[in-house]
């Protein structure tokens, strides 16, 4: 996969992309989420 034979490496490679994309999706979905509480 992706020119890499060892699954222990390509899985890590793919997970890096997926986790970064996951963060984007999570942030976008929760953009207006939750309480509007003030800090002080």
């Amino acid at each position, binding site marked *: 996969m992706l*020119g890499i034979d060892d699954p222990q490496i390509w899985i890590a490679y793919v997970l890096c992309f997926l986790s*970064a994309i996951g963060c*984007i999706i999570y942030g976008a979905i929760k953009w*207006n989420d939750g309480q509007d509480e003030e800090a002080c």
Partner: protein
Amino acid sequence: MAVDTSILGIAVLIYMIIVFYLGWLGYKQTKDTDDYMLAGRKINPLVLALSYGAAFISTSAIIGFGGYAGAFGMGVLWLVFMNIFVGIFIAFVLFGSRTRRMGVNLGAVTFPELIGRRFQSRFIQGFSGALITVFMPLYAGSVLIGGARFMETALNIQYNNAVLILAIIVAAYVITGGLIAVMYTDALQGGLMFIGMIILFVLTYSRLGGVVEAHQSLTSMAYLVPENLAAIGHTGWTSMPEFGSDIWWTLVSTIILGVGIGVLAQPQLAVRFMTVRNTRSLKRAVLSGGPFIFMMAGVAYIVGALSNVYFLDTRGMISLDAAGGNIDLIIPEYINSAMPDYFVVFFLLTLLAAAMSTLSSQFHTMGTAIGHDFYREFVMKGKTTKTISITRVGIAITILISVVLAYILPIGIIARATAIFFGLCAAAFLPMYTGALFWKRMNRSGATASLLVGTFGSIFWLTFVHAKEASALGISRALFGVDTILTGTWTLVDPILVATPLAIITAIVVSLATKPDSQEHIEMCFQK
């Protein structure tokens, strides 16, 4: 250096002017303790994400770990995954929201103060502050050395002067502008780093003929692994080291787990969760934080590993040989030879930004630890001068210590400084910090015992067992005549795998065996 020093000089000058402008903005906006210590608790999510990432990723993460990938291959990509999943997602969503809320409930302005107030213990606050004061200068010293070495080679400034210049510039805006200045400049530096790494990523793959082609070329190079590295587990640049080998243990225990999990309990990062207005800001920050870390760490390690293909094509040798056997020179050598001149200038600025952003947050955290947590709250029991003034003095003192360390420490120990600090934080702070946020039954006795066991367990293992630090420190040899008191695989196991579990068990056993903290106090800590 391939580029004209005058062009680089002008670029650095423009960059410095903007940094000072942001430092001045921080100074103008700082009106009270919350502003100086926590940037007024109203930082924008994008600034938080960039600042967190820029403080997290130092020059040594790009050059040092990138070079490590050049020498040992892509196994280190597991650290990138940990950095994004644990260091951003778990950190912001689970730890961040609770840290922020409890920080507000308890009126805490530093990481040690948050833990100290949760467990109603000045000892915990003072001891944590002292621990940061003693060990963080090691880490800051190594970042300072990285930045100064860059200035030495790129700008032709003598090393000793470079250390001083860098320290004075960062000190100027940290001391005057507090955390607002630190976070604004971090965000600028993070932005520069992001652009620099994107260009590096695209140029590298296009130069090597595309993603799959580049990887295939690297995979087919496995037969070029030097014999001495193959003997300790190196199997190629696109495969994991042999299970249980020397390289495997270092990669998995020190790098992937040590740095990957240790990040959760880094005081200079955890304090940032208290700088935002609400939980929503933390969730929004995840959006930019994940890709940012990918672009920093992921790109550095992928490019580091792929540099082997470039050097084989152009010089018929692997990266380690192209860099004269010095891992830290692999990335600079690759950038200088493979990248166009305009990018070399930009990348040097990227590295300077990476060093400065990490340094500024370290200086601020060390200053608050010695000035506010240790001196004001622990020694003087809170009955002395204003937090801001005492913190400013604290920052000045710790900068001085870091500068002295940058001059006197041997190279061998400097290379270990980041790992030592991360491991120590994981063992000393992580069980106590996690318990403080998620386990209402955890009490003062459990936290104190866990802090002490984690700290001294970690220090013991570093000094007497873990070969890399123990032999560099030389204390074990001086006392017992041997580099390490245990032998075999034990000497490869990172302190984090020993001291952190011990501290977790201690926290649970001691908390359950002693009286719970008052219900009233717990409710106050956890109220929404």
